[in-house]
């Protein structure tokens, strides 16, 4: 049967054609395609890894960002609290100072009033003394004609003066 006996002419042609095809494809065809496929798969792997890294980095950044915002909030709250405290302190101090000032003023006023009163009393007493001396002079001029009466009067005056001294 000719089907299972290989034909020499066909073998020669096949060898020749297959050799040429193999030479052309192995030199210009498949290495180019294989290299590109390999390069591309390397690139895809690379890109995937990079994307992964970027994602990780991004999540890190987000986390950092979040933490920063939190820190800032806390700081802000602290500052606000401090400010409130400082304000309270200042107000408290001012009030204290004002009270002190007022007390001092009142004290001073009291002292001055006391002084003024004293001075007025002294003036009045002097006036009264002068007046009484004048009155006494007049009375004495008129009454002191008799010695008896003079002595009487003198005693009375001395008593009165002593009383006045005690009363004042």
């Amino acid at each position, binding site marked *: 049967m000719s089907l299972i006996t290989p034909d020499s002419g066909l073998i020669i042609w096949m060898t020749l054609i297959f050799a040429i095809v193999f030479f052309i494809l*192995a030199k210009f065809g498949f290495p180019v395609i294989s290299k590109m496929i390999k390069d591309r798969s390397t690139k895809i792997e690379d890109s995937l890894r990079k994307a992964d890294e970027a994602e990780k980095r991004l999540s890190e950044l987000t986390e950092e960002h979040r933490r920063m915002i939190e820190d800032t909030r806390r700081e802000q709250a602290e500052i606000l609290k401090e400010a409130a405290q400082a304000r309270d302190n200042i107000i408290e101090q001012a009030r204290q100072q004002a009270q002190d000032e007022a007390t001092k003023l009142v004290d001073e006023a009291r002292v001055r009033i006391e002084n003024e009163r004293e001075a007025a009393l002294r003036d009045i007493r002097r006036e009264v003394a002068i007046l009484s001396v004048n009155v006494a002079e007049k009375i004495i001029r008129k009454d002191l004609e008799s010695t008896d009466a003079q002595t009487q009067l003198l005693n009375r005056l001395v008593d009165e003066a002593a009383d006045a001294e005690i009363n004042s």
Partner: protein
Amino acid sequence: MRFLKSIIAAILLLVTASAFAQEKGVDMDMKAYIFGHVGDSYEWHITAIGGRPVSIPLPVIVHSRTTGWHCFLSNKLEEGEYEGFHISETSGKIVETAPDGTEVRPFDMSITKNVLGLMFGSLLLVVLVLWAAGWYKKHDGMKEAPTGVPGLVEMLVTMITNDVIKDAVGKDYEKFAPYLLTAFFFILFNNILGIVPFFPGGANVTGNIAITMVLALCTFLAVNLFGNKHYYKDIFWPDVPIFLKAPAPIMPIIEIIGLFTKPFSLMVRLFANMLAGHIMILCAVAVIFLTVKMGPLINGSLGVIAVFFGIFLDCLEFLVAFIQAYVFTMLSSVFIGLAHQEPETE
């Protein structure tokens, strides 16, 4: 609905065609029909119009011991003898008549139907693969993926490289990838062209034992020329009890036989599968012509069945075309991989 319409149209066409055939009273020689289609020939028969065969004459190149080289077109042989050569009745090959009356086979390098089919398939293969390779020169392969033919070629190359070659051959697969890919695409293209029913397809290239023999021989060389020390040690001095290799070298003989049975199985597998597929399709089609004598009703109904069966077989053969190319490449890869195995360290 459209599908149904086309089915009815096909049935009507077949019935009329068979009625037409009946009038002519075709009588079929099944053996000649099948072997004429799957075998090789000196001309490319395309069809017959009005009983006259239409075929493309192909160049005949022969070298005779006595008269030297001859080169002429095959249609010169139709009338009988030309330049002392004629086509033998028994073998169907070109022979010359020796002075003593016996038929002598000259050295025959004719471009037969199979050679032309082979050339066409190879040309198509080279053009398509170089097209794919050229695509990368014009485009930046890092930024865009190919579409169309380059995309298809790239997909197949990726598949064969990753699924077959890389796994089976092992670490230095890149050295063998060009051969294995060439073998795969070569077989695939010629297989598929073989089931295209009209010119320039239809030549039973990969179902011819000469073709598969050369392919198997290439694998044989790729396996044994690059085998490592361990591989050859395993053939001539395998790890078996000593009485199996000396004094009578039983195991080495078995191993050496195995060396040749591997490519032989590759050769026969591809050849037999493709040949059987062709014959099956031809048989399915032949049903239409064989049943002509049984009347238009049986002929028409069997014709419909035969057409559907033929479509089914064509699809199956398309699958087989791919599977056989895949299997040939995979087994070649495995054999190459086995010749590169490192000894197991304990």
